[in-house]
């Protein structure tokens, strides 16, 4: 991460600042979603925006995810740059046709004649004791679809820079924010900046093992890296930041350097993000790997409500630490 001012913001503040700056910069940008205006969303991420930009730019909707997502697609095609707010990532299910059969394909099906410059903001992540329909991490689905770009910020700095790039991008971009991280603080420069989509970030340099981690799992990986340091294992933590475009080179180079790799993502392992990244590394660093790439994702169960059960489904520092230690034979 480039040197930054000392200013610290929470994830929520960084996202809000990115949106506010883009709303100011470009009158075509608007926010559409449930309880986004006065309520500022249940997570209060958008608090204050309607006061500055008014109800014609920050727009409350009925509980019609498919409907207002479809409206955003049409609005984006005809000159606006809407940011759609889907309160919980679990509700992506309701928008799949509009995102996958419409937004993702309009540009291609029209031979380049129409563009769909829209952003969808939504969440991922368990641990809020919200049970199976409010805890999923479904980012693998949309990462599978040509025409879409997918962003998973892991720090306030990344959240702001990636959000601004997403809004300026001429394609449909889906941003997944971990709902447990909105209060997570980190340095964010006061000066204007953006982060290009498709660039991985090495969150920690290391020599012995590569831990590829996404979203909140980056903190889990960094925690594990600390524990590993104590037993003399130097772990490199790599955050792809965008699932698509995927910065395969950085992932592969790191694995080649360390000769060992673990992939941690909060989505389900099977047919998920860990599968893609693990196979990219297994193929790209084939001749340098000393051990199979290890995948760590959410347990293969609908997220349970009961705290002891829910906690057992999410990847932990300890889990990553143990896996790394085993791979490094320590």
């Amino acid at each position: 991460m480039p040197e930054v001012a000392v200013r610290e913001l929470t994830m929520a503040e960084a996202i809000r600042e990115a949106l506010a700056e883009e709303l100011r910069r470009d009158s075509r940008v608007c926010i559409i979603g449930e309880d986004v205006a006065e309520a500022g969303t249940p997570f209060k991420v958008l608090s204050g925006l309607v006061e500055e930009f008014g109800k014609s730019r920050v727009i409350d909707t009925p509980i019609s995810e498919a409907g207002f997502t479809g409206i955003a697609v049409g609005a984006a095609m005809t000159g606006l740059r809407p940011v759609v707010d889907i309160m919980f990532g679990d509700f992506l299910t309701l928008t799949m046709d509009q995102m996958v059969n419409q937004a993702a394909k309009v540009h291609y099906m029209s031979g380049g004649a129409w563009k769909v410059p829209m952003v969808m903001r939504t969440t991922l992540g368990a641990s809020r004791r919200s049970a199976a329909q409010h805890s999923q991490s479904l980012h693998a689905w949309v990462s599978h679809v040509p025409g879409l770009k997918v962003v998973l910020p892991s720090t306030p700095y990344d959240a702001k820079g990636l959000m601004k790039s997403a809004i300026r991008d001429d394609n449909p971009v889906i941003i997944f924010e971990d709902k447990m991280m909105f209060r997570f603080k980190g340095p964010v420069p006061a000066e204007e900046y953006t982060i290009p989509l498709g660039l991985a970030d090495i969150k920690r340099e290391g020599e012995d093992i590569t831990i590829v981690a996404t979203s909140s799992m980056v903190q889990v990986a960094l925690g594990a890296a600390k524990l590993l340091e104590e037993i003399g294992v130097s772990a490199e933590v790599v955050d792809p930041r965008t699932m698509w475009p995927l910065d395969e080179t950085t992932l592969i180079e790191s694995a080649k350097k360390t000769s060992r790799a673990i992939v941690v993502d909060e989505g389900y392992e099977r047919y998920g993000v860990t599968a893609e990244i693990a196979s990219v590394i297994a193929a790209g660093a084939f001749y340098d790997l000393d051990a199979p790439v290890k995948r760590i994702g959410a347990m293969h169960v609908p997220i349970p409500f009961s705290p002891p059960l829910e906690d057992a489904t999410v990847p932990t520092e300890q889990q990553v630490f143990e896996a790394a230690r085993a791979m490094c034979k320590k």
Partner: protein
Amino acid sequence: MKTETKIEGAGSGLSSETWLHMYRQMVAIRLFENQVNELYTRAVMPGLAHLYIGEEAVAVGICEALHRDDYITSTHRGHGHCLAKGASPDRMFAELLGKEAGYCRGKGGSMHIADPASGNLGANAIVGGSAGIATGAAFTAKQLGTKQVAVCFFGEGALGQGLLYEVMNLAKLWDLPVIYVCENNMYNEYTHYSETTAGEVLARPAAFGIPSESVDGQDVGAVYNVTSRMVERAREGKGPSFLLANTYRYHGHHVGDVSREYYRAKQEEQQWKGERDPIQLLVDLLLKQKVATQAQLDEIQAQVKTEIDAAVEFALQAPYPGVDQVGEDVYA
């Protein structure tokens, strides 16, 4: 054997047993939800919960008109429906606390309580998400000729979900025994329904030729009577109905929603609580009509309180499921 108590007005023709049972159920919901709020405030309950306080007459009036083997689907604000349909508070509290003794072995929590024994197909955390399930249960009842009826509870916010219109069309085409109950408490979370709902609510079922009625959701007798008519239609194979129940939630959208001034006035809340409280209205009626004495009502209230307190205690003492259970019930 039921003794007829002749009284005037809404709900006339109901037996005193029915009146007192409905009173009992409404009190049970009120006390249950107060305890839930308490458990949240004391940080004993994981996560959040959406309280049904203020809306008791809707669930109770409707479920009183159903048989135990009739089906219901419920919502994120589902404790009232669940109790009214016959679930017991102890296993409900246990579920809310994530304990193994809960209806879902702790896996569902507040938004997913289900109970086959009382015909509860489950609460649902997807707004409108159970409209298909309820309609499907009615489909089975018709296919198998069981004469069962399915009631689909949903808040007025679910009027925003396209699924509801798809299944209402199907329910009418196939004349399924389903009753769509729109609980209009006037708010979709923090937004007034007038900002989310174009046209008249009752014009929506009319769009599919589904007969509908609206009812004062604070008048349990009125709710019971209109529901009885709809249930009868359904059992006679005359197809679906739509009931709009106008009501109000006293508390926040969920237990954590305490400062609400930015979306609704304190005075509005006071008015409903003061003038339109479903339990108070029922008490006044029962006393006025001499269906019961204050002493009888106090006794019922006391009994219920004892039961609820014991249920909370049971849940607090109950053990969490063993972590080994996390992998069970994924596949049947």
